């Protein structure tokens, strides 16, 4: 129970790593604003079931990250509750695989819109709340691709590298106000994002890793718990690679 009674915002909760985070954070006693793009019965049911199972509050919030007006309304619905916001996990993102020469400007803009600009904007809104509280932890999900620069990942990797740099600058600016900002760089993790990669690339990457296996979404979630909790009270501006040793 590392996050008992903490209030947490997690984006991209409908699937993959975000879904695992939602459950892991709830299991650690956190109340969660579970953000997803669209309202579905399945998502509402999941939120309800987790809330009952772990005796925490889960408030679904729906907005499309590419629509800044929607995002603003989503934020309002959170801040108007006047609850403290202890943790923000910027998890939602999209993947894109294409060779550099084949990558279109439209795609480049779309990927940056979701993976970078919208995260940036959401962090601006929420950091204001955290600075007033003089406490908070922001976790941005980047990627090993944002560090390594892999073939076919010029667009996605660049968007995640931008996240890493913003993480460090945010840490420098917000540290004095008691807000820590860190990033998690997952390696290849068992999510639907994998379907965008060829089997050959997946196998090659697994072989490159020390552990010789894929990561599981809950393993990324556990690292996020660490960065969200007081266990990491003197850790800020860091990029934590959770990649089985790539």
């Amino acid at each position: 129970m590392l996050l008992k009674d903490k209030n947490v915002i997690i984006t991209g909760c409908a699937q993959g790593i975000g879904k695992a985070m939602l459950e892991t954070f709830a299991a650690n006693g956190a109340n969660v604003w579970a953000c997803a793009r669209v309202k579905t019965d399945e998502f509402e049911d999941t939120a309800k079931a987790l809330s009952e199972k772990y005796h925490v509050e889960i408030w679904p919030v729906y907005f499309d990250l590419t629509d800044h007006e929607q995002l603003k309304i989503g934020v309002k619905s959170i801040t108007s509750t006047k609850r403290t916001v202890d943790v923000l996990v910027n998890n939602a993102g999209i993947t894109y695989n294409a060779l550099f020469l084949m990558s279109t400007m439209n795609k480049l803009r779309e990927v940056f819109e979701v993976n970078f600009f919208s995260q940036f904007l959401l962090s601006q809104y929420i950091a204001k709340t955290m600075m007033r509280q003089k406490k908070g932890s922001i976790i941005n999900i980047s990627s090993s691709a944002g560090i390594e620069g892999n073939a076919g990942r010029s667009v996605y990797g660049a968007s995640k590298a931008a996240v890493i740099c913003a993480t460090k600058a945010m840490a420098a600016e917000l540290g004095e106000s008691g807000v820590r900002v860190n990033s998690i760089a997952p390696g290849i993790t068992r999510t639907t994002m994998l379907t965008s990669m060829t089997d050959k690339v997946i196998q090659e990457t697994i072989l490159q890793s020390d552990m010789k296996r894929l990561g599981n979404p809950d393993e990324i979630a556990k690292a996020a718990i660490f960065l969200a909790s007081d266990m990491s009270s003197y850790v800020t501006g860091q990029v934590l690679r959770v990649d089985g040793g790539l």
Partner: protein
Amino acid sequence: MLLKGKNVVITGCLKGIGRSTLELFAQNGANIWACCQYESPDFTHDIKELAAVNNVWITPLYFDLLDPEQIKKAAHSIRETKQPVDVLVNIAGMTHDALFHMITMDQMKKVFEVNVFSQMLLTQYITKNMLRHKSGSVIFISSISAIDGNPGQLSYTASKAAIIGATKTLSSELAGYGIRVNAVAPGVIKTDMTANLPAEVMERLMAKSDLKHMGLPNEVAEVILFLASDMASYITGQIIRIDGGIG
């Protein structure tokens, strides 16, 4: 209770980061071989109490890292218990301040003996145990000065940089056997090691850090606990900076 029922070897338990780690691990349910350089009545008394309060066992082991024979004996006494070792935390180390041209080879070799060679030897012994049960977590203590450099500390920083190389290579050698190997790189932590830093150096470092304050030994211990536990099950070969955001 992140380490309930786990068996752990920690070196440098007498004070500072080692002492905090010893206490935090015991509170988290770990049984501990608590290694120190020498025996002291206070320490013997404290660990007895710590073990009783937390319902774990704590066995003290005394050896000098400058003496490979003593290390061997300590490792042997662990092996004789036939207990699996789940975690090894190599904390004991020494600092050394001297400008490059003033460092004697004897000093340089001593620093490497304590901060690198002895740790490799102990890790060889202990990971043999981990290899048998195909799981384990090894944690080394490096330093941000090994990554950033620090004038007047060449021998110390070079020895701590060696730990980083060892961590990454060991990780790739042992991961196939279920053993994770990571290091932490503390920044300015309130211990005896930083007590003598000149005020102007301290001021400069604090101005550079995002959080604008020193870290506490317990804050390093918490990260070590994370790496030791199953929370870090997909993390290996990493160097985690615990520095409040310096550089």
